[in-house]
């Protein structure tokens, strides 16, 4: 009963969500009695791949080549399918990401597997195979049984913490050829922020709303983010007004984040915004209106004017080590 886990890089290192998925997959493997194998698509520094053994991987398959370096959903799907067939995977674990969202269905369909996304916990294997998943954008949970021979699951962000167990894994290269259908979607241009922390991967997110009055004041938020080593997000009106790029917009219709710490500044806490942040471990709200609905969803709050509070908070954060 082999388990296959897909890992992704953020450009310089393997993403935390992928490390969490490897640990998770290793736990699933020990539950169902098998080995945890990893599939990595693209070129990785060798030591990053062998280090996955430390999170419980027994072996690593690596697919490289021109078509496997552009974050192409079709190429990634083809690689995962080939790897699943090679290791005879019964469970395929995919860490939630925008790329995974764009190819997970294909993997499941080709493997004739049942698929469940947004899984938040280890499977219950006491009677069949069932998982807990988040539904209604984090407002509820459901348990779902997967009855197919092969099972595909997408692990929700920050739902399972990876742990280092010691060990290394051997890396083997796998050759995969693409079919004609895999090359029908052509990428003509990529615009990616460089050197920025990925919002969906960050352990701390500081987010700003309409309370900032205008993009010229965003430096206050960026300074705090820098002092805390945090990624930045925003509310929908902020990205609608182009104060910030669309990919920073958090909520029901934007990015869903689940960091350890979410600090919301000058955001009222509309239910659609909360839907994108309610899986965060700890929520801090800074708002001048004590009646702002966000305080009801918060763990810690400061009632105050952000233009006064933020500079002080940033100064205090700089003193942390």
């Amino acid at each position, binding site marked *: 009963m082999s388990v296959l886990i897909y890992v992704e890089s953020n450009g310089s290192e393997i993403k935390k969500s992928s490390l969490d998925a490897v640990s998770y997959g290793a736990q699933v493997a020990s539950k169902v009695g098998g080995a945890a194998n990893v599939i990595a698509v693209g070129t990785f520094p060798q030591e990053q791949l062998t280090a996955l053994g430390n999170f419980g991987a027994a072996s690593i398959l690596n697919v490289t080549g021109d078509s496997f370096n552009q974050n192409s959903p079709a190429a990634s799907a083809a690689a995962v399918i080939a790897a699943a067939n090679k290791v005879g995977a019964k469970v395929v674990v995919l860490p939630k990401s925008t790329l995974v969202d764009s190819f997970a269905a294909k993997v499941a369909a080709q493997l004739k597997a*049942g698929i469940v996304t947004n899984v938040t916990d280890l499977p219950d294997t006491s009677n069949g195979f069932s998982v807990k998943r988040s539904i209604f954008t984090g407002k509820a949970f459901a348990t779902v049984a997967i009855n197919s021979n092969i099972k595909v699951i997408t692990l929700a962000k920050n739902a399972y913490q990876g742990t280092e167990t010691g060990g290394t894994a051997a890396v083997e290269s796998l050759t995969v050829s693409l079919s004609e259908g895999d090359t029908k979607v052509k990428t003509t241009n990529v615009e990616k922020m460089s050197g920025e922390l990925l919002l969906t991967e960050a352990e701390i997110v500081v987010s700003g709303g309409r309370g900032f009055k205008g993009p010229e004041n965003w430096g206050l938020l960026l300074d705090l983010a820098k002092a805390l080593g945090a990624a930045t997000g925003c509310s929908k009106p902020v990205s609608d007004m182009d104060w910030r790029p669309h990919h920073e917009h958090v909520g029901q219709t934007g990015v869903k984040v689940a960091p350890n710490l979410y600090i919301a500044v000058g955001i009222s806490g509309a239910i659609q915004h909360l839907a994108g942040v309610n899986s965060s471990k700890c929520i801090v709200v800074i708002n001048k209106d004590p009646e702002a609905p966000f305080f009801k969803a918060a763990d810690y709050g*400061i009632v*105050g004017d952000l233009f006064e509070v933020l500079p002080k908070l940033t100064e205090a954060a700089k003193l942390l080590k």
Partner: protein
Amino acid sequence: MKILVCITHVPDTTSKITFANNAFNAAGVQFIIGPYDEYALSRAVELKEQHGGTVTVLNVGDAETEPTIRKALAIGADDAIRINAVPKDSGFVAAQIAAVAKTGGYDLILMGRESIDYNGGLVHGLVADALGIPSITPIMKLDIEGGVAKMTREIEGGKESVECALPFVAGCQEPIAEWKIPNMRGIMSARTKTLNVVEPVAVNDAVLYGTFSLPAPKGACKMVDAANPGELLTLLRNEAKVL
């Protein structure tokens, strides 16, 4: 150009989610077209205005979803199909949609990036695979020139431009189009537009929903004095242990 838009009938984004007898409690809940699906529909109507053709909306649901389907007709779809089955999960829904789309000759199938009830994010990819055509998600811009679509797809920390020849399936999100408010003429004409009801096909479904639950309630919010924000950091480090 024949466009198919698949829409969900989901609780309004402000709804309180509760369950009764292990089923979603719809009492007092307002239902809407899924927000992402409505972006897809709005763009489909714009594409029709530019290129001619038809927009068909499709929903897998029981008769209760018909007001939502009529709203899509009022927004500008030409006709509608309702597959008469309670949507059980993405795999079931995709099999139903694929069965209808196989013979429909659609040039483009637009969906939302995900439904806001089940958040599967899967139906577009599963339908595309069943039809043997590409699926692209999440897209934020879609233009068609000479049978080729030029799109912008969101990627982590940015966006990419992609091209694909028709037909394909796409999962849409903002800002692909502005939501359209139906006008009086649209609402009147929606009443008489064709809504075909189709019976579902049998599906050997691999996934079975069991029990539903709600997250644990949040404790009280601890307030920190605005004059001393440093205290907040102390609490985050020592009490919440998140710094």
